[in-house]
């Protein structure tokens, strides 16, 4: 189809779709009046049964933990997929150096930015760890904390200290951490089978409600998810950056 025809066809079909869907949505419970048995039941039992004060975490990592296992592997597959897609083909090295030779002038990172970036890293990492560790108590958890942790590492890059990153980690180490995170979730889940119950059964002591060390396996799963997300994201961005960073270094 030519772009013009395509646009017209889409506008007609999309219009029908939008109007039909909007008309259908009028049959949804009016906004703010939802009363589902499932959600209500879960938010009533998460504290007494699981000592988890954040019901969303209780759903994600306990009652419906298996969904999260699947989601975690979507993340896993996507990161591995990026590695597959961005892998170097034969002769790509040479082609790159040709790119670099044309090197655009990149302004050197100013000292202020450098200090700011490096200075922000420790608090960001701490904040990430805090979010991961308190997933079962307050909003947050392995997914969000993992992203924050990765951001902390990236601040080092933004500060223009890419060499320092290579001192910090290698891609193999990241891959391994990611694999440990993904495999760890499964290993924790298998505990349930080991004691003769079901996969992902919360078999550890539940502790005191409100304590960081409570809620059984949930903080452990959060930690392993946090590790996977953080390692995976840093790996992801490293793979993208890998292709631009040398440009920076060769510029005067």
């Amino acid at each position, binding site marked *: 189809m030519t772009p013009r025809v395509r646009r017209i066809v889409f506008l007609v*079909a999309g219009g029908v779709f939008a109007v039909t869907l909007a008309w259908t949505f009028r*049959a949804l419970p009016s906004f703010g009046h939802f009363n589902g*048995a499932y959600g209500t039941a879960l938010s009533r039992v998460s504290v007494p049964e699981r000592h988890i004060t954040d019901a969303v975490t209780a759903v994600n990592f306990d009652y419906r933990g*298996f969904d999260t296992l699947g989601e975690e592997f979507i993340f896993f597959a996507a990161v*591995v997929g990026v590695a*597959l897609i961005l892998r170097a083909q034969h002769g790509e090295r040479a082609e790159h150096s040709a790119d670099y030779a044309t090197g655009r002038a990149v302004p050197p990172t100013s000292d202020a930015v450098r200090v700011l970036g490096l200075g922000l890293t420790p608090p960001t990492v701490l904040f990430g760890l805090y979010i991961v560790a308190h997933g079962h108590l307050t909003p947050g958890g392995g997914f969000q904390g993992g992203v924050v942790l990765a951001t902390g590492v990236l601040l080092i890059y933004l500060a223009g200290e890419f060499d320092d990153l290579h001192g910090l980690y290698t891609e193999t180490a990241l891959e*391994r951490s990611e694999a440990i995170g993904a495999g760890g979730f499964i290993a924790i889940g298998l505990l349930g089978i080991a004691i003769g119950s079901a996969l992902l059964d919360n078999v550890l002591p539940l502790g005191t409600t409100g304590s960081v060390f409570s809620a059984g396996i949930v903080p452990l799963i959060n930690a392993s998810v946090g590790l996977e997300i953080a390692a995976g994201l840093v790996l992801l961005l490293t793979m993208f950056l890998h292709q631009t960073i040398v440009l920076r270094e060769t510029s005067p």
Partner: protein
Amino acid sequence: MNNLAPLPVVVPLAAAAFILFMSTVLSRRAVQLLTASCVVGEIGLSGTLLYQARALNIVYWFGGWRPRAGVAFGVSFTIDQIGAGAAVLSGVVVGIALLTVPRTIRTPNGIVHAMLLTLLAAMAGFCLTGDLFNMFVFFELMAVCAFALAAYHNDSAASLRSALNFAITNSVGAFLVLIAIAMLYSRTGALNLAQIGTSLAGRHADRLVVVALALLLVGFLIKAAVMPFHFWLVDTVSSAPIPLVIVLAGALDVLGVYGVSRIYWSVFAGTLATDSAGVQTLLISLGAFSALIAAVLGLFFESPRRRLAFVMVAHTGIVLIGIGCLSAAGVAAASVYAAADGMVKIALFLGLLLLAGANAGRRAGLMVLGLGGLATAGLPVFATGLGKATIEDAAGHAGYAWAAVVVVVAAVFTGATVFDIASASRRAPPDAPEHQKKSAWVPLAIGGTFCLAASVALTSARRGFASAAARFVDTFDYQQRVLTGTAVHHANQTPVLALAPRGVAIDVAVVLAAIAVASLLPALRRVQPARGIARASNVAHRLHAGSIGDSATWVTVGTATIMAVLLAQFR
């Protein structure tokens, strides 16, 4: 609880993580061996579940969260024989795909192996799960693995573009599924298939329910690559690496139809029971449209892979016709056909691969393609013949005799396409000889033979398919087993899957007609085509040039149409 149930998913996932962890340590051979043993393990585990589910569905609650007062607290696997069988098929297909990996894939680190294992886990999870959102999760996991693999040839613009087309189209499908999940959740407050079904049953299906059904249908039919949602598949099959193509051809695309039938029987059958004609007409029409148009288009394209892609679309349409009859007989026939045809299509792609090789391999390839052509057209020795004939019967019983005619015509054309590919490549000179070991063709030939033999052997499992289908459509039994743990007496009669003399006659006639069409084709090609045909062929080629914008437009058109048609029928 039966702790075997989650293992077909968990074992491959754990192995995938392990392979990534050890990627720099393990040798190529070790990775291949580990992956192969995991696939064999998955087949064994799913096979055991298939056996254990022979009398009663297996219900497994993750985390041990059993339902309370009819409210499902956790996620369940609800395993019946159709689901377990589909998981076995997935394992077999991935296993055969693995045979082709050493020949076609050259990456370090076993990344492709990790992806194939994750893909297998997702397929198994999709087949075994009893929870709508969990189904969505595995649906996405399948898609992500598959489109990353589709981009494997990262030096080919066509391959990359097709991966993007695949990814965007399938993601839109996934979002439609998620919207439907939100709608059903708002109505029933449930995510478990059985609980949603129970909660909807006996109530009038209003537009919320009908549109939710429409969106779920679209989401899964995009995965199944039924027309007009097939553009991504044609594009992907032409340029993706062979292992992925084999997985797509053998099981992955037809799992979309599995998804349709699963949600229909577990969720919607109760509320639409007295009024299912609308859904029936819609599914059968979509299937017939795909079967007919794709079968014809297969004749018009040049690249063998692209032509086989159209054969895939056409045959998925035939499966959809069987499912669309909304009867136990239809489900039984469609499952036999889907399983046998999956095997045959894999054999066809292995045949193509053999043709590209050395002389002995070429001969084997021609043999596989020739026999595969007979199976594609539905020679009665093959279970495809049984499946096709019984789908025709089921369509006739449901009052859609015209759909049975479409099935016959489509099989003639797809069979002819395969014969034509074989004879064209017999005439064509072999490709530039690849530098490879002389014996490299042997495993492929063995794989091809195995697939063809399997499609013959499946005829002997007809009773199993029939009783599995009877239980699959027993909505009430499914729901009670999940929510109360009790078993209800089966109300449905087991259908009889048998090849009547009339069916044999039609099958044989189809095969002969396919051979006749194939032998006429070269002569027809020499004739200057009529203006109309030339123009139509031109348009078809341009439509299948791989435009992502086009795919997205057709998805919108299809969605709007399906929504409107279903709503009109449930006024």
